[in-house]
């Protein structure tokens, strides 16, 4: 299941859906939640705006889910990414994988967030006390994001 939305999401609700959906067949559920960090190079982050490419972004997320499902034995997967303006400590992204074996769930969850960060068309614009700028993918430690 993939979703791109401006609204916040509830990780507990998503994990519960995955648990109900996999009803007794999965022993392991691993989740990753990405939050907006409050500092970048000593500048306080006031706002983080997420832009996406409607249509292509959803396709990219579905492709990531399908790759994970092809590579590991998974009972269910979730990818949710928010767009629009976000504040420090807000949830940005949620990725989860359910599996019989926990190694599969860990590997798949990490693969999905790693791949999302390189393959899915999202862009971050950061507003700090030093001004506003689009983040660059070439920065080794991308600020304001869970790297």
């Amino acid at each position, binding site marked *: 299941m993939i979703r791109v939305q401006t609204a916040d999401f509830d990780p507990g609700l998503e994990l519960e859906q995955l648990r109900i959906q996999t009803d007794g067949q999965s022993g392991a559920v691993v989740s990753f939640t990405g939050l907006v960090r409050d500092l970048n190079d000593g500048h306080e982050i006031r706002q983080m705006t997420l832009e996406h490419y409607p249509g292509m972004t959803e396709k990219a997320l579905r492709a990531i889910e399908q790759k994970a499902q092809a590579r590991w034995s998974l009972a269910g997967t979730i990818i949710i990414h928010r767009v629009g303006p976000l504040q420090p400590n807000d949830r940005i992204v949620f990725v989860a994988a359910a599996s019989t074996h926990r190694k599969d769930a860990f590997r798949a969850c990490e693969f999905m967030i790693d791949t999302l960060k390189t*393959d899915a068309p999202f*862009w971050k614009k950061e507003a700090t006390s030093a001004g506003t700028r689009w983040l660059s993918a070439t920065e080794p430690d991308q600020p304001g994001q869970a790297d």
Partner: protein
Amino acid sequence: MVQLCYFSSLREALGTGDGQVELPGEINDLAGLTSWRQSRNDTWRQALADTRLHVAINHQIVNTNVPVNNGDEITWFPPVTGG
């Protein structure tokens, strides 16, 4: 007609988008299309010359010069930074 889109810092650098445009008859591939947009002015010439840009045609990233056809959606954007 083709649909031309620009995202993120590129769109801001261009100052404006493009939307639906009529392809001139002599333009039938990506290289030609890019040159044509670059010919608009120096801002466009410079912005679209950035070799880090990605191009997607109908939501598929393309890495070589490929034909463009009426009805295509062609999009330029900088490296992604989501997640």
